[in-house]
């Protein structure tokens, strides 16, 4: 029965564009009321997945259902609202006029003022759409997604191009809408956003689901702990076979060991006399994400540690602000 059907169900969904398999067999179920983050790099298949979900594209194989029905039917019935990446509102109409119009296309819309309040743009109601700043336009697009009071809202990279303050305001609005019992799916390539704002994270890589669970679960699944120390000029031979170790990376003069049993690994390192500036840190979501979606396949990565170290190093540099807190929380062993 459709009343009990999940909000979203993907069954072995495939979509190909020429030689590129954009979505390569995704199975996915989102319960009603759940907030799910679709996390992946550019080109991982997030936008294609969203297009398929909204019925804007048809899958080559498999089945997509929203509330137990064809996506087009759910959209027609007003059960879905969306904020697309390139859905720029029309000029020369006011914010209120546009939101009221979109709301009226739905069977049970919320009051226009309520949609504006939820998006935090009440004071812009009389302003013309073409005179909004980038951040204001983004919030208008959120208002358009929720104006019809749909059960499910889909947000494709909703915070791209927003500054920190606008981003915080945006997630506040999103959580308020989710808290009403609605289902939310958003895509992002910011890990912190996924971790902070979603009940569940689905990591996509090259059109495939590579992880699915809470932020905690994903961190745990990918290999609990990192043990790092200075190589002090010595090589990495033998490290891979130490007890508990599942992966070895080199960043500059430091070795990073991913381990499932940090105690055993540290004892073995101590026995070998390799403890200079030794640190034990819990794996961060960034580490988990990078190890899940690194451009090289997992088996290649272990063989070419130096190459991975570059990739990881660059990515880490980009998230320096965020890692500071983690660094402070580290338990250092000397």
């Amino acid at each position, binding site marked *: 029965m459709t009343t009990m059907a999940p909000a979203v169900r993907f069954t072995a969904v495939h979509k190909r564009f020429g030689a590129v398999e954009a979505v390569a067999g995704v199975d996915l179920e989102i319960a009603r009321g759940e907030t799910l983050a679709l996390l992946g790099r550019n080109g991982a298949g997030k936008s294609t997945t969203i297009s398929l979900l909204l019925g804007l594209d048809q899958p080559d194989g498999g089945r997509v259902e929203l509330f137990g029905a064809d996506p087009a039917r759910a959209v027609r019935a007003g059960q879905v609202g969306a904020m697309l*990446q390139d*859905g720029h509102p029309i000029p020369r109409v006011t914010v209120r006029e546009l939101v009221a119009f979109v709301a009226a296309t739905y069977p049970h819309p919320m009051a226009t003022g309520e949609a504006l309040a939820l998006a935090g743009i009440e004071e812009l109601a009389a302003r013309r759409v073409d005179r909004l700043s980038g951040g204001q336009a983004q919030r208008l697009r959120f208002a358009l997604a929720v104006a019809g009071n749909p059960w499910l809202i889909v947000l494709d990279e909703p915070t791209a191009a927003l500054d920190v303050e606008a981003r915080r305001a945006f997630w506040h609005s999103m959580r308020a809408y989710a808290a009403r019992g609605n289902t939310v799916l958003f895509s992002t390539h910011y890990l912190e956003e996924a971790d902070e704002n979603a009940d569940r994270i689905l990591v996509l890589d090259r059109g495939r689901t590579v992880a699915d669970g809470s932020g905690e679960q994903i961190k745990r699944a990918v290999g609990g702990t990192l043990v790092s120390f200075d190589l002090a000029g010595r090589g990495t031979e033998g490290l891979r076979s130490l007890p508990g170790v599942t992966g070895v990376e080199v960043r500059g003069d430091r070795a990073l060991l991913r381990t499932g049993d940090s105690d055993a690994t540290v004892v073995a390192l101590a026995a070998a006399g390799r403890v200079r500036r030794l640190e034990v840190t819990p794996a961060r979501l960034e580490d988990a994400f990078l190890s899940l979606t690194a451009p090289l396949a997992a088996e290649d990565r272990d063989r070419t540690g130096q190459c991975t170290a570059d990739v990881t190093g660059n990515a880490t540099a980009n998230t320096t602000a965020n890692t500071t807190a983690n660094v402070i929380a580290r338990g250092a062993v000397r």
Partner: protein
Amino acid sequence: MNRRLTPVLRYARLEVRRTLRDAGYVITSVAVPLAMYLLFTNLGAGDDAADKADYARYAMIGMAAYGALGAALGIGTGVAEDKGRGWLRQLRVTPLTPLQVVAGRALTASVVVLPALVTVLGAGAAVNGVRLAAWQWVAVAGLLWVGTVPFTLLGLGNGYALSAQATGVVSMASMMGLSVIGGLWIPPQVFPRWLAAVSRWTPTRRFGDLGWSVLDHRGPGLGTVVVLGGWLLVFAGYAVVAYRRGARTA
């Protein structure tokens, strides 16, 4: 009100507001035809009062038709812009169907051609002293209004088939070219014979004839109805094909 119709009306209302606030629309479809009408009929129109009155009546229809033509084709530019900015795609994730979107646009066209028509006809009566029987005013306005339908379809076809920039260029070229050859600016009686022959087959000539025929105290002839009906079918076919290609992928 009908549940399927209401969203179309609301969409048309939104689009009409947006169009009336567009300086480009006001200039191209209202101000320029009006200015051209007043200039052509009052500068160098000769001294003969009868000739002048005759030209004032003739050009009133031609320029009203010219303005309405611009407004109808302009609908396509809006569609192409919305396609480019992803707005048509955004509309596809609302309960509005693509067909309702097209219907709303067509309805918008039927409203925004009116200022173009009324302005020039009004200038004819108020400034140039054109005197017609009441039924003639009603018939001229009504027939020209209905006669914009083929051009709205051409505009919609352009909008779905082409990019915003290409639609702008094609619309402007069609507007100018069809207006000249169709005799909306200059009476086809002064055309060379070959051009006069071509002119008879253009949609704009027949569009103008809807109004001119009323000045002669008769309705549009069978030839006008048949030729304009033929263009209506051609442009409708074009719009349907363009829409099927454009709206699905928008």
